């Protein structure tokens, strides 16, 4: 279901990418002036050289229009890092991938303040966009424009509206994962407490060796602990992790991200469902939290 939704988002993005707009530049007035001048001269002079000059000028301008569209059409653009969080200054990486040589492209905001100018793109290029949101869930990104001023008489541009529905995750905030784990260990007994000892195996950690026993017996024994960190599955409970809804979501977001970083498996008990890292990707869990 979630995958289908994500795919539909990409499809939407793809389809909107092809909506290009044009508008004239001041050079269009020069072009019109030349065309009118040539037409007048052709009309009165009636020489085919003048007609041909008129036709050449007109058709080059028309071909240039096609070139302009093709120039910008040759760029695939996407947001590379789309994880954004509330109350943070998020850096979005705007990725421009040219299929061919692309010239004279601007990335600007809605008011056409230039964010990046790319005179000549031959390889994948990145531009950084900044975004800030106070609320989680779906949020509107500001509109951007990708403009091509190539060739001259007109501009071709894309209104980048397809990122309207970007998902903002809760702000990662609260007790960090290590502290939480320590708390959990205390609940399961002291860190030095161990149940039993057994003969040392080569795969065992050196820190698990019972050195006092080795000193007396000259044989290696391994301690079996009550709390095995590696075997321990982290379990986060929505109801008990913080006091209010937003704080709980922030806490869970923080732990989810930290678990992802440290590659720990975890489960989150939400009021009506259980989110398990073994069954869902981090993004899917974060999406659930963002939309909760």
């Amino acid at each position: 279901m979630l995958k289908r939704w994500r795919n539909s988002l990409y499809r939407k993005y793809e389809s909107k990418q092809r909506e290009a707009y044009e508008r004239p530049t001041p050079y269009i007035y020069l072009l019109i002036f030349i065309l009118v001048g040539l037409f007048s001269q052709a009309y009165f002079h009636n020489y085919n050289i003048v007609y041909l000059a008129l036709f050449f000028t007109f058709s080059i301008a028309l071909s240039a229009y096609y070139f302009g569209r093709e120039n910008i059409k040759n760029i695939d653009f996407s947001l590379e890092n789309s994880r954004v969080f509330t109350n943070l200054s998020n850096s979005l990486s705007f990725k421009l991938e040219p299929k061919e040589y692309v010239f004279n492209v601007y990335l600007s905001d809605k008011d056409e303040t230039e964010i990046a100018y790319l005179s000549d793109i031959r390889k994948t290029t990145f531009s950084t966009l900044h975004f800030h949101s106070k609320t989680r869930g779906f949020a509107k990104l500001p509109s951007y424009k990708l403009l091509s001023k190539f060739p001259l008489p007109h501009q071709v541009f894309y209104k980048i509206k397809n990122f309207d529905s970007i998902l903002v995750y809760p702000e990662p905030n609260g007790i960090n994962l290590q502290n939480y784990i320590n708390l959990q260990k205390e609940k399961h007994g002291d860190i030095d407490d161990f149940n039993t000892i057994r003969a040392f195996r080569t795969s065992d950690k050196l820190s698990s060796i019972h050195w006092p026993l080795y000193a007396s017996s000259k044989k290696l024994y391994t301690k079996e602990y009550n709390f095995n960190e590696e075997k321990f599955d982290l379990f986060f409970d929505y109801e008990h992790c913080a006091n209010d809804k937003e704080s709980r979501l922030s806490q869970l977001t923080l732990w989810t991200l930290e678990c992802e970083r440290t590659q720990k498996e975890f489960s989150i008990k939400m009021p009506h469902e259980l989110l398990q890292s073994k069954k869902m990707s981090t993004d899917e869990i974060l999406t659930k939290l963002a939309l909760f």
Partner: protein
Amino acid sequence: MRFLQNLLSFKQPSVMRRIDIALIVAVIPHLPYLSGFILAFLFVSVIVIIYIKKVSKSLVNTFMVIGLLLIFISFYGELNYAGISRFSVFISLISAMLIYVVMLQRLSGRVNFYLLFSPALLLILSFFFYNTIPMLLYMIFAIFTFSTMLLWSVMEVNLGIVLKKSLSLFLLSLPIVLILFLLFPRVSFERASYGFTNDQMMRTSHDGTMSIGSDALLVPSQRIVMEILFDKKIPPASKLYFRGSTLYSKKAGVWKQIPQKMLHFKALQKRGEKTSYKVTLYPTFKKYIYTLDYSQRALEASKITDDHILLADKNTEKVKHYKATSYLDYINAEKLSAIKRESALDFNATDYPQLYTLAKALQDTSTNKSLLNLITYFKQSQLIYSLKPEIDENSPEESFLFKYKKGYCVHYASTFTLLSRALGIPSRVVTGYKSNREYVYKNYLIVRESDAHAWVELYLDGAWKRYDPTAYATSSDLLPKENQFLNDLSINYLYLKHIIENWVLEYTRDKQLNILKKLLEDSMFAFTFTFYVLSFIAIVLLAGLYFRRDKQVHPTQKIIDKLLKKLNKRGYKKDKDEDINTFLTAIDLAQIQEINTLYHKIRYARSSSTDEVKKLNKLIKGISSKNPKYP
């Protein structure tokens, strides 16, 4: 080759340099029409622009005053209403003024809208000066240059890439140009008669007289008088007589015309198959319109005379294009008026005693037999065709026939006409052009001034018949023809030129309507026409798209290719499927691993500096392509 490589690797020049290039291209067609003073002003301004980077305001002001003064001097005497109302003076003045203003603006060093616009304005103005094929080609070159400069202003790349883009843009625009050229409705006005157009040099042609003495018309010049494009095959040389004037009376050594009736149509009998052709007649400054024997209908703005001579309403002062139809097999029957008969039999025995005696000797029982005797006499007289004959001024015909036996068409025609008259046969001299099909390509024929000819028409059995006594010459003292290869080359070039002139420069509203009409009526023509047009469009589009596609070659690829080349020479060959990293890692040479790391960093890292590219270049330069020599 190295020069071309250097040229193509030129980096994007400044706005001013781009404008300079466009201005140079736009000013060139004006140069022949600028006075010496304006040329000097232009030259000095260019020198100042080149050598003084920042021209002071006072120097610009000095140029302003001097320039105005030079324009005034250049057009002194023309600067009145009568002078300026002459279009050529007006356009020259505008041209000089524009160049003056552009140079001042350029000297000031400021780029503004007017300076940006000036190359286009100068080019448009130059269209008033010329309507020739070189100007057509130059116009295409100028527009290509302008679009290249415009493209370069938005592409921070070297000349090679911008030329490729510009060429692609140009090629993709060609189909639209073709369609517009064929279909865009033309105005039905006559050609504007102003401007300094075309080849205006006067051709030596017939003036309705023919001198027989030492001042006889002799034009060995190879200058083209007419270009003829036949609808079908070119008729045989024996039929290629282009009629000019008919001459009846000879006074003081000069043959002259007699008054003619001016008609619109002159009937012919037994007309046979007709031949249609298009003629380009160069300025003769006479009213004669040359058509093949016989055209029976007057052309537009012309009349046909009783003798089938076509006369235009005005002298041919500009290149004239006309379409004519002639009947090559004809009987030109005519009931001779008393005046015409008298003129055609005008022969004074006392003026030509030797011719009279000969005529008496040739006289037979019938006119036809007498004529046969005359022809036989001509053939047996061992007459030589010569362009440098010796002629006695007092008796040119008799000295030609009996003494020197050398002459060219006028001597043959004049002598034959006089003898025919002495035999009682009404006869007249006809002047015009006769082609020997020397300058022929497919259905295209060139008539040069050297093809000027005179022949004879005899009135036999109630009709005029053509006789060409020059054909009775037994030998010629003309030098052999020039190199045949050059001749062929010249005719091919002229044919191409004619086709372009005919179908591009002279593509008129009538031709446009004719094509449209033919497209609707002739399905075979429609099919062929569509096929050629579509083929042209397809080829041009494919070429345009080919040049438009840019292989996305990363800049470092070119650098690494150099290294691969060097390594290849040293015996390290890279397999096709092998990637650069695997290949370079396996090579145990100093700095190769550093190159490998740097290359991959520049190629695949998110950002790379130009310093790193420079370093990579330097490292690769340091690798020798030769294996070190061991003692």
